[in-house]
């Protein structure tokens, strides 16, 4: 891999009070890659994403986005650097309408025309949202909310998308649709995706690389295919 990786994490450490939640995590994600972050409950997956996106302060280590250090910039600046985080549950603002949620995602861009074009694109991508644009987001189903969350993230025009358990609480069929869509996004626009999943099997089936977290440390990383095949690892950390 001669090309510079789009996302590099070096020795990232984060803590809740005296409890270390992330311990010297190292990761590299190539441009256009889809990688999975796996692990049991409490392994530090969500903390990893929150630290990457600046919601949580890093105690030590660095996060580099295309070589630029973004470790210490505030969370709201990350969209400007092209890194967008869809938190667990999607973070849809249920008090706003679907359209307002989408508009919010693109607000940081200056150009009105560009925002409109984005909106058309995103609505194209998620037909169920188009019919519900003026409805409160609270009326959406779980799958539609996840689509809205991802749609709002795409409005920001990300180069790296951090997704925290998009399949949480969704029916297998809906999960499948969302996973397929991620693959398509990667193919269409060179999007890099970091996917945190509890459901390791479905995550490994669409990703090309996987990181396994245990108690805040990366205990294993390999190609998704090999991780799927490694029985010992599956039993030890992934529970299937």
């Amino acid at each position, binding site marked *: 891999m001669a090309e510079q990786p789009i996302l590099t994490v070096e020795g990232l450490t984060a803590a809740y009070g005296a409890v270390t939640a992330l311990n010297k995590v190292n990761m590299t994600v190539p441009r256009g890659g889809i990688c999975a972050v796996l692990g049991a409950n409490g392994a530090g997956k969500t903390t990893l994403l929150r630290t990457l996106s600046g919601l949580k302060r890093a105690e030590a280590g660095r996060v580099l986005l295309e070589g630029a250090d973004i470790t210490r910039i505030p*969370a*709201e600046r*990350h969209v400007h650097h092209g890194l*967008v985080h869809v938190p667990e549950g999607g*973070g849809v603002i249920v008090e*706003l309408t679907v359209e307002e949620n989408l*508009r919010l995602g693109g607000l940081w861009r200056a150009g009105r025309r560009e925002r409109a074009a984005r909106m058309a694109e995103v609505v194209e991508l998620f037909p169920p949202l188009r019919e519900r644009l003026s409805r409160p987001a609270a009326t959406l189903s779980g799958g539609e909310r996840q689509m809205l969350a991802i749609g709002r993230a795409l409005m920001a025009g990300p180069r790296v998308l951090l997704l925290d358990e998009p399949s949480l609480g969704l029916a297998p069929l809906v999960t499948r649709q969302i996973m397929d869509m991620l693959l398509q996004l990667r193919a269409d626009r060179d999007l890099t995706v970091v996917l945190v999943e509890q459901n390791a099997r479905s995550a490994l089936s669409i990703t090309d690389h996987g990181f396994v977290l245990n108690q805040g440390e990366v205990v294993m990383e390999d190609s998704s295919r090999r991780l799927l095949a490694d029985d010992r690892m599956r039993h030890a950390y992934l529970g299937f």
Partner: protein
Amino acid sequence: MDQFINLTLNGLSQGAVYAALALSLVIIYQATRVVNFAQPALALISVYIAYTVSQATGSYWLGFGAALLTGLVLGAATERLLIRPVHGRSPLNAIIITLGLLLVLQGLAGMIWSNEPHSFAYPMDYRGRFSPSDWFALGSVGAAALMLFALYRFTPLGLRMRAAAFRPEAARLSGVRVGLMLTAGWAIASVIGALAGMLAAPPFIFPNVLDEVFIFAIAAAVVGGLENPFGALAGGVLLGLGMSYVSGYAGPELTTLAALAILVVVLSIRPDGLFSRPTARKV
């Protein structure tokens, strides 16, 4: 009958003032989950500044502008300097801070402008049934409410402010500077509070002039539901009419107790106010 009409008209213009102050409380409550007990004091200082400016320049309207500007600055400064540090702590902390600020500002007003009442001008002719001043009160509060609605509903700033108030974390992830939006909310609310002060103060201004108005405003906000700006407006008009009738038919000294009675009756039927949407409370 004639008295009834007079009381109704009077109630409407008074209600507009309560509605404006209630609206300022609701905006702040929506943004930061704080009932700003210092709101009457911020308005008070604004009105005193208007008094001073008007005295110096001879122009009521220059004073009016100065009052709104003062409200803007004071509101923003209060949020930044006093409320932000206790953000996320027990709500009692924020309440006590605003109460402390109330004491400080009322005391400062007394120190600077003395506790004696000064005469303070109406914006327009105030004589007669539904005078130009009454019209002005109703009209300016109505205009302020409309502008606020347009701001929240149709502008990017309004969308950011709403997002920041509802889900601060999700807003941040979309690139919204949440802290700035909360400051903006306090600033805008305090401009409306200053407007309410300008309408409520005449004919005299003294450090406690807005206390009673504030009681009715908070009653209006609570009756309407602290979460709902339209509720605050409706609650304000309701309280204005109610207080006008009570004052006219039963006696002015009973108005605050009547406000309390309305409050208790409404809240015992709907504990979160008339216009609140039922929401699940966090367990």
